């Protein structure tokens, strides 16, 4: 166990935890955009920035990655921290003005758009939080999507923006996306799901007959787990 201070509160924590883990366990709110408990932290949104240390040695770090240590002094709401959060939020508001989720979060944090940043007109709601890419890689284990280009041109896509033949159409990327940028469409009868520019044939539940999952996804799960396909052909409601 280590002893640290967050916002003048003395806290005991287990070694190896991050500042964010410990803060949340102790009811201290730190905003995040790219964090998800099911994933390793990425440190890309910088919303969870906090200030550590005191005086000239004080510095801003990302709480989702910084490991707690004995004697650590954390300030989760210093002026420097507020400036970083405000800047990050204003930059993202200008990048994705159409995202309702971002607008709501900004309002909660009392942050207003910076009028000097001309709002982007491309209609993209993607804030490059990387949750989709990390989920596909580490939770699903497929890596069907990744990034292309760098800097301002960076974007999430399938390789060469072509329809991916390794994507299983599971839709985990769309469900984890915090801004609703990744779109998934289902045909009126429910037999086809479209995502990342590819149509996936849906499997019907062997009991109730409802379409419930892409065939490619079931084949993938069967291959990974060894569970026969027949057993997987039952939807979660009938199971």
């Amino acid at each position: 166990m280590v002893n640290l201070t967050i916002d003048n509160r003395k806290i005991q924590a287990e070694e190896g935890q991050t500042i964010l883990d410990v803060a949340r366990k102790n009811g201290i709110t730190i905003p995040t955009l790219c964090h998800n408990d099911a994933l390793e932290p990425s440190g890309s949104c910088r919303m969870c920035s906090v200030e550590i240390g005191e005086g000239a040695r004080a510095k801003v770090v990302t709480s989702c990655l910084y490991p707690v240590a004995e004697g650590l002094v954390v300030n989760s709401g210093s002026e420097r921290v507020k400036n970083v959060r405000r800047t990050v939020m204003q930059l993202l508001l200008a990048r994705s003005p159409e995202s309702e989720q971002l607008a709501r979060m900004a309002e909660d944090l009392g942050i207003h758009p910076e009028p000097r940043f001309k709002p982007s007109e491309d209609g993209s709601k993607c804030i490059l939080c990387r949750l989709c890419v990390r989920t596909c890689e580490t939770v699903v284990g497929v890596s069907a999507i990744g990034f292309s280009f760098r800097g301002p041109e960076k974007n999430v896509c399938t390789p060469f923006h072509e329809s991916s033949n390794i994507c299983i159409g599971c839709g985990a990327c769309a469900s984890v996306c915090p801004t609703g940028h990744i779109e998934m469409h289902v045909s009126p009868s429910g037999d086809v799901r479209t995502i990342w520019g590819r149509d996936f044939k849906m499997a019907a539940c062997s009991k109730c007959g409802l379409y419930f999952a892409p065939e490619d996804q079931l084949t993938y799960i069967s291959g990974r787990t060894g569970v026969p396909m027949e057993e997987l052909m039952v939807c979660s409601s009938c199971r």
Partner: protein
Amino acid sequence: MTIKIKSFGELKELQEKIKAGRDPRKPGITLCVGTGCLAHGAMKVADAFREEIDKRGLSVKIDFRKTGCHGFCERGPMVIISPENIFYQHVKVEDVGDILEKTILKGEVIDGLLYANPQSGEKYVHEDEVPFYKLQTRTVFGMNSKVDPKNMEDYLAVDGYSALAKALAMNPEDIVREVVTANLRGRGGGGFPAGRKWEETSKAKGSPKYVICNADEGDPGAYMDRSLLEGNPHLVLEGMIIGAFAIGSSEGYIYVRNEYPLAVENINVAIKQAREAGLLGENILGSGFSFDLKVNRGGGAFVCGESSALFASLEGRAGEPRAKYVHATEKGLYDKPTNLNNVETWANVPFIIQNGGDWYAGIGTDHSKGTKIFSLVGKINNTGLVEVPMGTSMREIVFDIGGGILNNRKFKAIQTGGPSGGCIPEAYLDMPVDYDELTKVGSMMGSGGMIVMDEGTCMVDLARYFTNFLASESCGKCVPCREGLQRMREILVDITEGRGQEADIELLESLGASIKDGALCALGSSAPNPVLSTIRYFRDEYEAHIKEKRCPAGVCKALITYSVDPAKCTGCTLCAKVCPVGAATGEKKKVHAIDPDKCTRCGACKESCQFDAIIVR
């Protein structure tokens, strides 16, 4: 070379044998074929020398050696005649016959090929008298002019690999202690003490341990690492092998940009030679220590010079940095203990081992030791690579060694530390150049780039230029760097094009502070430096652009107009002749005029005017 050197004794014997076979009085011609000289046509000069030497049957009578960069790139191609050490500059194919005929055979000095001081006109015969060289301390870089990078015998002839033999007979902990005592700080950017890195890596748990040479030099205008790797690859190798032994590593990588084909070629040749000679691979020099390394070519992303992005790239992933709250010395490449140093840092190591850490710590300032190679470029007379002790004043570097500003114009500022360094104004010219002093004035050492600017440089436009570079080179992983630099660039473009707004300077300052605090890696956290330092020292220029819609330096096209000064114009018609759009017109011997609607502000008239009659406002 195919002889395998099996012991320290055999290395010494071989060095002595090579030296004994070389007569110091024998006439020699050393030609620089570093990248700068190659661009000046040095390869054609080299071919001409070979041909003429053969034709005159002189090949046994004289030594002809092609070497890497000597540093005085402005004056290439360069030739040094030994044993007298005569220095010829701007040597052309036509001069080759003369050099052989007059200087080599008759001992005459060719006046037309000598270097003349651009200010005083004074001429210098010998290399060590030329102020550019005389005022330097070329400890690390000086060897470049003595070795053919593809010939390992040349390196052995200057006692190359003696430091390795000495190190292999020492305790690894003692080697680390020497580097700690030397207080060698990283030459690549951060300036972190190399000895501490070595210490941490050697103590870290985990296997294997890696040593890496960062040769992903990406600062525009900086090429000291390139020149070391191209010109003296064995020196870098020797440093790395010593480091690997001290740390307890058996595997290493050299990460070099693919845009440096000659560096890639020469380091690969050197590795092959060192392996064949038993200096790399299994049981080095019979010591029982084994170490080998691979060359990995980088794809050209600026960010891959950042150590954690470099690891990602080496591992086959996209070059994106990660947080370094756990040091690479514990978890670096493949999450194993890793010691990464830059090319120049490694090149310093053999000298520290040979002469001792105390000797090294005797050079430089309190917290910055040794010499540093700077790449002096921009509006300067002596463009080139300059090695001086830490603490040398900026004025000495720019004016005494660099020969002052091009065309006798006025010095305005110097950008140090690469694109994410800061701009230092004239008031600080006498400051000693070291890590801490540069940081104090809002800039940094970086890898040692120095871009000199004259009065014709607009500081807002300069900040826009570097911010544009950094915005496009941001990896895009974290929000402050990716989005923030883009917005900074937009605002700077607005200011330079006359759309600046009242509160822009304050916004740039606060945005800059947030990016510094919030960015994930050193690229992002240093990226606001060009903007913040130019605002700090040249705020009035920003204000002139925003409030008066005026570019004081006469650079920003949207804010300037060209006109003719009737008092100075002689009606020579030259401006009308060079104007590409017919905006400058007038009759012979009568005052000319420029039509502002037609004028594209290309500056051709101003450059051509002999009477300084073109006004830019």
